[in-house]
């Protein structure tokens, strides 16, 4: 059986690898580099350290959505229109989150981390990259059930103000709740998630008794500093967006922020294996990606 090849492949074969589209993609890469330089120069956000493929996808989508002809045209707009930059910033952090994502992680925190937290008279927790807040409310519920909430302060930070607004309100569409309630039970929940919120028509709002213990604030992991001593830091599914250099900066921040023997929880597919600061931590829960800062530092 002989296989047919299409015309474009024949073209490429005859012309070597420097086909027209190759140049088009190289050009696109170059234009995106310029865009990121502009953003850094103009607004101080360094997206040059972000994983490139998903960023490129978002840039190309923004070009299409805004009816622009090229990344270079987008670059012009970003330089001269802060409003347009804000739009892009929003694109960059339209991410998805849920309550008690990976319930086994929360179960492990409940069963094995809380006993250590209990030894502190005041407990500081940092959720870095909290998105729209679901994870912060999850940990607040868990702490309430472990009778630790009243001495806890949860700092939930993100660099996306739009997400933080939603997080502060603490109200979510009611049709999202069923899987959250299921996750809650799998995470070792002791009552029913509905004990923690009121329902108004199509939304639910978490009780202010939870909210009172959460401070939502803007914090940019690219450039902001440590702001308090923490006993537990949760930064889940944020490092996947960063290249190695930025991952090292961020884990360095966490190391500096944690008390001796403090805990760091990463996302299911993240690890400290290749991080320069990795040796400052020991594995506490391998599957759960829970690390503990070593004391001899």
């Amino acid at each position, binding site marked *: *059986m*002989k*296989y*047919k*090849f*299409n015309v*474009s*492949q024949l*073209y*490429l*074969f005859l012309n070597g*690898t420097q*086909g027209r*589209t*190759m140049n088009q*993609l190289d050009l696109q*890469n170059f234009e995106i580099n310029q865009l990121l330089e502009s953003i850094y120069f103009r607004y101080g956000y360094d997206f040059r350290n972000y*994983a*490139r*493929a*998903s960023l*490129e*996808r*978002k840039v190309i989508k923004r070009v299409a959505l805004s009816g622009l002809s090229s990344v270079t045209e987008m670059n012009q707009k970003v330089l001269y229109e802060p409003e347009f930059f804000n739009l892009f910033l929003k694109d960059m952090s*339209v*991410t*998805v*989150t849920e309550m008690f*994502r*990976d*319930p*086994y992680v929360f179960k492990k925190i409940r069963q094995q981390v809380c006993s250590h937290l209990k030894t502190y008279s005041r407990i500081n927790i940092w959720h870095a990259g909290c998105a729209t807040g679901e994870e912060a409310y999850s940990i607040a519920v868990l702490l309430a059930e472990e009778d630790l909430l009243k001495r806890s302060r949860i700092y939930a930070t993100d660099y996306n103000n739009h997400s933080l607004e939603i997080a502060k309100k603490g109200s979510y569409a009611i049709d999202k709740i069923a899987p959250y309630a299921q996750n809650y039970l799998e995470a070792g929940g002791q009552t029913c998630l509905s004990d923690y919120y009121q329902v108004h028509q199509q939304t639910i709002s978490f009780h202010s008794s939870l909210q009172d213990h959460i401070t939502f604030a803007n914090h940019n992991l690219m450039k902001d500093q440590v702001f308090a001593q923490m006993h537990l830091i949760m930064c889940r*599914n944020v490092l*996947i*967006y960063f290249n*190695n250099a930025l991952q090292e900066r961020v884990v360095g921040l966490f190391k500096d922020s944690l008390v001796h023997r403090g805990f760091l929880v990463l996302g*299911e*597919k*993240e690890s400290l294996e*290749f991080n320069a600061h990795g040796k400052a931590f020991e594995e506490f829960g391998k599957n759960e990606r829970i690390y503990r800062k070593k004391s001899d530092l």
Partner: protein
Amino acid sequence: MNAFIEKKATYKALVVGVSAGGLKALCSILPKLPVGFPVSVIVVQHRKHMAGDYLIEYLAKRCQLAVQLALPSQPITPGSIYIAPTGYHLLVERNATFSLSIDARVNYSIPAIDVLFESAAICYQHQLIGLILTGANHDGSLGLKTVKKYHGLTLVQSPDSAEYPEMPDAAIAATQVDHILPLSQIASFLTRLLMGDDHG
């Protein structure tokens, strides 16, 4: 024809998108890929996010090639089968490593076939083969179109051999695909294309 035989060695990766009916379809292709298969195989199979992911184990038992979960920063090596983890989009970076994201669902799916295919097309360009299998939605048709745009080879399972023809139908409607193949012939097509006539 010698020129084209030369050409076969230039493919570097095969991306596979599959949804409903996928386990059966994958099992009639992947186990038949022989040791020495010269490209990386990267698979998005739509499925729910959960703790225990049995797909890898299930396929690993049946395949001659190594089957593993695609994880961030991992170099993508030929002769391995990589499966997208659940609950994340899987992307190929321009330097042929994987990355993951939890961005909005695409075609109601995470991982989405379009996201893998479009990023892989940018990385591998004419050295990519895209393959769409059975499924009850339209994911993958834009991705396959992008594979074609950058001169990759586009393959679709023939709708009448698909448990759920909707996804192959959508892919065929969106792109002038290079080959439409019955499920039973896909593995041998690939091995002959990539390894020559004495295989497959």
